[in-house]
């Protein structure tokens, strides 16, 4: 039973699983649920803040761009703790999506107030805060995996 010995420190029940319909109002409900669960698992507050920022951006992105009408789809959030890494997985049955490649900060040195960007901060924050992330399109679902170390 090597496998069970290996998992002794990380029992199977140390997982979060919850889903919402695709509507804006449910994002904060999910974020609250995740925040409470992470606190209960003794995750430190700065890591909880990081996960909240990234999860909000990723969920907003799915809700804004993933579906043609509200409350027509399903967005699932799973969290798994693997030693010192927290893995957050978001999957949805919406329109096929590819994360933008560019990783540059939306704010350029030469920016004057009139030309300041009002968007593009979402993916920038996701890239800045996560240790890494991967995206897959599998069986008509988008699957975004975010790693926090």
């Amino acid at each position: 039973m090597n496998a069970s010995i290996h998992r002794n420190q990380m029992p199977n029940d140390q997982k979060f699983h919850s889903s919402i319909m695709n509507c804006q109002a449910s994002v904060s409900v999910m974020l609250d649920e995740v925040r409470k669960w992470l606190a209960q698992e003794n995750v430190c507050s700065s890591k909880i803040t990081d996960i909240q920022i990234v999860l909000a951006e990723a969920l907003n992105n799915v809700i804004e761009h993933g579906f043609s009408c509200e409350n027509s789809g399903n967005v699932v959030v799973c969290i798994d703790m693997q030693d010192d890494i927290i893995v957050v997985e978001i999957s949805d049955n919406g329109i096929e999506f590819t994360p933008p490649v560019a990783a540059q900060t939306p704010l350029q040195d030469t920016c004057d107030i009139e030309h300041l960007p009002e968007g593009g901060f979402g993916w920038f924050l996701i890239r800045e805060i996560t240790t890494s992330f991967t995206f897959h399109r599998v069986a008509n679902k988008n699957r975004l995996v975010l790693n926090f170390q």
Partner: protein
Amino acid sequence: MNFETTQNGVITHLLLSEARLDAAHAIQFKEGIRAIADNGADYILLDMTNIEFMDSSGLGALVSVMKYMGAEKKLEITGLTPMVEKVFKLTRMDEVFRVHNCFEDALLEAQNMEGPLS
């Protein structure tokens, strides 16, 4: 988006009453502040003490309102909670917005500026 406004000399102190400035509140927030600017507020000090959570839509709304105020009017910020401060720093918006430690700092600075200008 609920907020309380108090006039202190040149400063319109605008305290956001909600706990979130996010995608769900961004449009209301923009409309609310624009209305206050249209009503003659030349210097809005936005107090974010109650904001426990801000996402990129909230940040975009702040930028949008600052642009709306233009060069003649001022929008400055105070009361950054740790989460909001983190988003400001990561996106380098702390370099774009004038952020005061507290309302009193901003008031003192405005009073000092008023003397020679008037």
